[in-house]
C-alpha cells in the first residue's frame, strides 16, 4: 500500500502487477475512503465495541468511490 508521484509512475514500477489497475486511486479518493467512522472514529472510547456498526457505511463509501470494483469489495 504505497504512494507514487503519478499514475504513470505506478504503471512503470517494478512492483506493479498487470491486472491490478483497480488498485490505483488518487490521493483524494483514498482520503474519502478513510473518512467514515471506521477510520475517523478511532478515538471514541467505545470504538472496538461499536466497530461492527461502522462496517456498512465504510463498505458503502468504498464501493461508491471505487465504482463498485470487486477489487475493493471486502465481502466474501
Amino acid at each position, binding site marked *: 500500500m*504505497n504512494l507514487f508521484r503519478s499514475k504513470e509512475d505506478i504503471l512503470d514500477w517494478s512492483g506493479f502487477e498487470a491486472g491490478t489497475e483497480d488498485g490505483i486511486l488518487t*490521493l483524494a479518493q483514498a482520503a474519502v475512503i*478513510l473518512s467514515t467512522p471506521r477510520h475517523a*472514529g478511532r478515538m471514541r472510547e467505545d470504538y472496538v*465495541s461499536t466497530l461492527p456498526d461502522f462496517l456498512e457505511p465504510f463498505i458503502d463509501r468504498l464501493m461508491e468511490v471505487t465504482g463498485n470494483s470487486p477489487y475493493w469489495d*471486502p465481502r466474501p
Partner: protein
Amino acid sequence: MAEPTQLDRTYHYVLSTMVERGQAPHYTEIAKEFLVSPDEGKAMLHELMAAGLPNWLHPGTDLIGSIAPFNNLPTHYRVSVDGEQKWFAQCGLEAKAISALFPGKTVRVDAPCLASGADLTFAMRDGEIESATPAGIHFYVNLPVKKWYGDLPFA
C-alpha cells in the same frame, strides 16, 4: 456511547499513547495503566491484537509492531504534526486516516515515490486535504481487499 469494555479501554489507551508520544506502550505500561500484573497486561495486549483490527505484534515478540493508522517501527511514511515529526504511518492508505486523530491540527506526511524516488508531501486537517506536492500523487495496492487480512503487513 456504549459502556466501554476492557478491550475498548486497552485499545484507547494504546492508541492515545501512540498519538501523544509517537511510540506504542509496552505491555507493562498497559498493566500499570489498569492496575493489574504484568502478565495480565500482556494478556490484554494479546487480546487486543487478536481482535481482528489492522494491528499486529512484531513477529515472535510481545512488542507492538503496528496499531493502525500508525506503525511502531519506522516506515517511509513520516508524519509531522505542528512541524514535529515523531510518528510513522502504517502504510500509504492509513496515512490519510491520521489527521482524524489530531483534530484542528495540520498533519503532514512525507514519503518517497517508490518508482521514481521523488519526494512526496501532503497535508491534511480534520480529514480534508490541504495541499499535495506534486499534485498527481496516487495510491496503489497490488492485492485485492479480500486478501488483505491474510497478510496485513504485506498488504
